[in-house]
């Protein structure tokens, strides 16, 4: 008994080693030497690497803040640990960088460290997410406009589907998240006056499983002929809904049309395959815009407090054309 047991423990520990081994080596914490001359030294505190969107965002930032573009980038990924991220920003201040870019993990708790940066005369630029601190503590913000994304999706639905009476169900994102709230607001605004009726709406928590379960429920409740259009607050829920629609014996993209937001790879693939009808992109490629903003801020030019990235949109043909060259 005891021997068997020890063998089990040995296997377990060996397995742990194997597991850590095969996934290692993703984050390179590049750190540059002190820049001289015209090189702008920038510290970028990223949230972590929790999703494909985030990886694409990191790549874009690293490319934009490259040596060729006149930057010296100090990169830190905090693995979604707010304390580690604040520590990273503090270390940027100690290193005497010229500007700090932060994608804040959480909204709160930034006042002290931003004041320290202000005392050291280092401008802070927020990327992607915002903070609850007083706007005077940071120079500017660059990110995606969720409401405009919802509006673009709604406009397509109103123009292409809403000309005939349409029964629509909505797969909402995580209840209370700004992405879910703002996308819903924008979409509802755009479909006002069209022949689209929202017959039901429920949260799918931004996950594939959630999207599939909720869609299954809707299909049971209204029947596959009782639903004409699905608006999913993100691609993952749309992908779940596709599975549910197929299981119910209907064809996604034809019998039941799908509009979604995000533009992740699997979503674009489904769009190219004709299973989704329209995707509004939530652009992770914020690097170039962020780099331009940093240059303006350092050059003491006036900048807007909030800057929205350009979000593209794709129909099925455009997705086919765009897929081979997509960065994410």
């Amino acid at each position, binding site marked *: *008994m005891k021997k068997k*047991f020890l063998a*089990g*423990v040995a*296997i*377990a520990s060996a*397995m742990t080693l194997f*597991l*850590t081994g*095969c*996934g*290692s080596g*993703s984050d390179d914490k590049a750190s540059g030497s002190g820049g001289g001359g015209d090189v702008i030294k920038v510290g970028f505190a990223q949230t972590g*690497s*929790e*999703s*494909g969107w*985030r*990886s694409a965002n990191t790549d874009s930032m690293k490319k934009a803040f490259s040596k060729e573009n006149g930057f010296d980038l100090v990169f830190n990924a905090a693995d979604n640990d707010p304390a580690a991220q604040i520590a990273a920003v503090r270390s940027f201040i100690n290193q005497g960088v010229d500007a700090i870019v932060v994608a804040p993990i959480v909204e709160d708790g930034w006042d002290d460290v931003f004041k320290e940066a202000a005392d050291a005369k280092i401008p802070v630029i927020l990327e992607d997410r915002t903070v609850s601190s007083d706007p005077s503590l940071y120079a500017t913000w660059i990110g995606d406009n969720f409401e405009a994304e919802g509006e673009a999706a709604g406009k397509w639905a109103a123009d292409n589907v809403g000309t005939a009476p349409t029964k629509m169900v909505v797969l*909402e994102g995580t*209840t*209370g998240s700004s992405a879910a709230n703002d996308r819903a607001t924008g979409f509802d605004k755009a479909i006002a006056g069209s022949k689209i009726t929202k017959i*039901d*709406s*429920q*949260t799918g*928590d931004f*996950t*594939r*499983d*959630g999207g*599939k*379960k*909720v869609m*299954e*429920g*809707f299909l*049971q*409740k209204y*029947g596959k002929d009782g639903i004409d259009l699905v608006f999913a607050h993100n691609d*993952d829920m749309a*992908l*779940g809904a596709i*599975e549910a629609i197929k*299981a*119910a*014996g209907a064809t996604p993209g034809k019998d039941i049309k799908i509009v979604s937001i995000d533009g992740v790879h*699997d979503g674009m693939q489904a769009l190219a395959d004709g299973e989704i009808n329209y995707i509004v992109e939530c652009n992770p490629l914020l690097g170039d815009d962020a780099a331009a903003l940093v240059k303006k801020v350092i050059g003491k030019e006036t900048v807007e407090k909030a800057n929205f990235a350009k979000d593209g949109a794709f129909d099925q043909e455009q997705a086919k054309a765009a897929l081979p060259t997509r960065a994410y």
Partner: protein
Amino acid sequence: MSRLIKHHLFWPGFALVALVVLNTVARPRFIEISVQHGALYGAPIDILRNSAPMMLVALGMTLVIATRGIDLSVGAVMAVSGAVALTIIDGSDSPGSVGTVLIAILVGVGVSLILGVWNGFLVSVLKIQPIIATLVLMMAGRGVALLITDGFITTVTSDPLKYVASGHLLGLPFAFFIWVAAVAVVSLVERRTALGVLTEAVGINPEASRLAGVRATGIILGTYVVSGGLAGMAGVIYSSNIMAADANAAGELIELYAILAVVLGGTSLAGGKFSIAGTVIGVLIIQTLESTILFLGVSSAQSPVFFAAVVVLVVLIQAPAVHRAARQFVQRRSANVPDITPGTEVAR
């Protein structure tokens, strides 16, 4: 009639039937079952199919709770098992072959069994409090799953894998047969051998059972291994359902829902006596309740409150204190005694 009411499964069963009736009254479509592509199709069938992951997890949880333990790591184990299995399929040259999928599932469940051994080792040999011992893996496991998938959602195309969650056998979902088989095997082993009695003995009084010659260490370890293995299979079904390994979302909060299902089924968190049939009903109540939220059209913002309110109601109708109060009330009325001072125990 009164014997029926006294049966420990009466109230959980009553709650389940009440939910089904409520749904059917709200929308008669709920109970409609049609035949589609040679398989049964309808909301009750969806409930039976979607129950599979939670059913397996709750089944393992029942045994762990019977030994006075708790396993918080099941959701993370689900994520690891799904990540391992789908990474193997994704990396294989023939993702569509039955052999590849079988190997992937075996490795995924195998890794989960080892994680179960780890939990069991911490609890039974090192005597660490179960809630802390399994918390370690609950947090670390999801990280491991994210490392395996590199932070991405691994999507695969594989018909044999799809069959696990979405396929049909004899007109019924294959996933339904998986959980029925798991429930049958665990019930047989626990109830047709002395193992069930020994498990309960360890949970009721570990010291006394040790003195009576029960090998508590092995029994406790075994329950965590079973819980890990079942969670691993649940992870495979979850991934098969969406044909993707979603390390962030797989099995999120399922540990708490599984504990809820066990308790709704009448098993005490204090350990000891357990009811597998009760757990089955508990899981079906939770799944039906999720359908109810959709069928009644409860809004997203209100659904957690609705869910909680129903759960409290179901727990209340099972509570002995409530039964006693109800009996007192009935007796007072029939005996026509105008006042009994509050708090007085009525002789039974």
